[in-house]
């Protein structure tokens, strides 16, 4: 069992800070009308302390993924900035960014290049960053793949020969090979079957304990969120509406939207029936 939840997270060591991050998309309307503005992410400020897991929950379209993309440097924010280890990142320095922060995406079927072998996929970040020579790199690749539980015979296989759970393990190995501080997990288990989901969640817990990682865990599955995270941020329509510790958010939710989310989560509880919600 990991002890990550027993040890208090030091509150002065900030791994990642978002300052008033905003992303506005222009909306095309008519030819002669001024373009509209869609605020996908609206003035979001968040701090991730080193070694903690912060859950980000919300429904589709609330801006979770836009936020994740800005953190990864894949999307320039309209305003506001992202500080990694207290330093602002130059948007042109993608590589420096990638050393500290890495993603695990939702769909392991589309996030791996189908024309490359597992070892090539996992080794590519090392190659791009010019780490070591070929022999050192291949040893590192082998080590990390062992660590995520990929047997040696799979290293030369292509993604289409792997199951969904194995693909997600490869994606995790690729994210970890540069030894980043922070992992952005964007719904890492929602495309997987229930029986495989538990394997991947256990792996994420083990890796966190081993490498002292900081996770931003984006999910709509409140059961999984409650199991993994230390604090929860609830997002609705581009804004964080509530940010609380795990215990508090699940026992005393403050914001009406959080309450509605919690009420609509269907835990396996025969006899409880389906909750009545106010129609949206």
């Amino acid at each position: 069992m990991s002890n990550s939840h027993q040890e208090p997270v030091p509150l002065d060591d900030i791994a990642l800070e978002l300052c008033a991050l905003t992303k506005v998309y222009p909306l095309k309307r008519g030819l002669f009308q001024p373009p509209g503005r869609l605020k996908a992410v609206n003035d979001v400020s968040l701090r991730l302390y080193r070694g903690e897991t912060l859950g980000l929950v919300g429904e589709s379209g609330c801006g979770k993924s836009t936020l994740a993309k800005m953190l990864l440097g894949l999307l320039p924010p309209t305003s506001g900035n992202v500080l990694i280890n207290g330093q602002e990142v130059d948007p042109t320095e993608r590589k420096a960014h990638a050393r500290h922060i890495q993603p695990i995406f939702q769909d392991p079927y589309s996030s791996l290049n189908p024309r490359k072998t597992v070892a090539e996929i996992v080794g590519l970040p090392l190659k791009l960053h010019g780490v070591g020579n070929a022999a050192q790199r291949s040893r590192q690749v082998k080590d990390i793949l062992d660590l995520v539980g990929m047997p040696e015979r799979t290293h030369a296989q292509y993604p289409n020969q792997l199951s969904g759970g194995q693909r997600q393990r490869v994606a995790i190995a690729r994210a970890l090979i540069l030894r980043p501080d922070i992992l952005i997990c964007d719904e890492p288990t929602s495309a997987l079957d229930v029986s495989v989901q538990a394997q991947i969640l256990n792996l994420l817990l083990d890796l966190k304990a081993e490498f002292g990682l900081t996770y931003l865990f984006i999910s709509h599955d409140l059961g999984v969120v409650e199991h993994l995270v230390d604090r929860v941020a609830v997002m609705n329509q581009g804004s964080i509406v509530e940010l609380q510790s795990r215990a508090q958010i699940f026992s005393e939710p403050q914001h009406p939207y959080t309450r509605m989310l919690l009420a609509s989560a269907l835990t396996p509880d025969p006899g409880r029936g389906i909750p009545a919600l106010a129609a949206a």
Partner: protein
Amino acid sequence: MSVLLDVKNLKVDLPTENGMLHAVRGIDFQVRRGEMLCLVGESGCGKSMTSLALMGLLPRKAQCSADHILFDGVDLHGMREKQLMQLRGKRMAMIFQEPMTSLNPSYTLGNQLCEAMLQQPGVSRAEARERALYLLHRTGIGNAEDRLRQYPHQLSGGLRQRVMIAMSLMCHPDLIIADEPTTALDVTIQAQILRMIRELQQEFGTAVIFITHDLGVVSRIADRVAVMYAGQVVETTDVAQLFAQPRHPYTQGLLNCIPVRGKTLPGSHLQAIPGVVPSLVGQVSGCAFRNRCAKADSGCERDPQMVQQGSATAAHEARCLKLDAATDAVDAMEVAA
């Protein structure tokens, strides 16, 4: 309650490049009038193929065989397409998973809603429209009059799924097959739609086969549950019994590996089921779960049969050769707890 649908030894085989894929390997189940039967299983376990076989909508190259598929006393297996058309929509209806793709983008909702009902002799346009308006209202869609003139792209996913549900109810069917109807939706919308399906089902006395992979949904909506694994039904019982005393090791594993508030300690290791689902291409023999099962031994290479327990009214069946050991383990766990 009388039996509405009785499926016996249904098999579906799909030819693939690597050999025959045995998607459904001889399943039996019954649906009683007015009940909600949940078919639950992981992807690839054959639950969608089962539903398509019942509706006669399998891909053309698929090979389907069965001892019988009795729907209200009539055998659907081997029925001609024309006769099936008489049943589909009228007495059996289907709600598909993807509300985004299952409505025709080039017809108005009114057209699509009324289409099946207008096929029946003696139904006037006004009657069909009346029924459509009533059902749109009942499925929680505001300004139904305007909606009838709209096209699917003007609606959100949740609204489209409501329209699909209204459409399935148009001809007072006896049976609705709902194939993961809420998987593509947000949790708050999911709760609303599930509640509505359950209420309408109970009010109209419609039997529903509800296909899902989400045990949380199953626990809240089902009357009875059939758990599927690798193309077979491995356990059937009523919902309370399944969650209180699962008998098959696969069901026990599934229930143990989901984190539940108040029961699983946050941050602790979950009891994952090791390994992956076996491939169903080529010859499959013995218990399909034995490569992932803690209780399996060499005896599990025999094909397990359904073993019945409980009374005739509350039967509890499981397909496992190690059932005594399995129940003992559950008892031991309860003692320990």
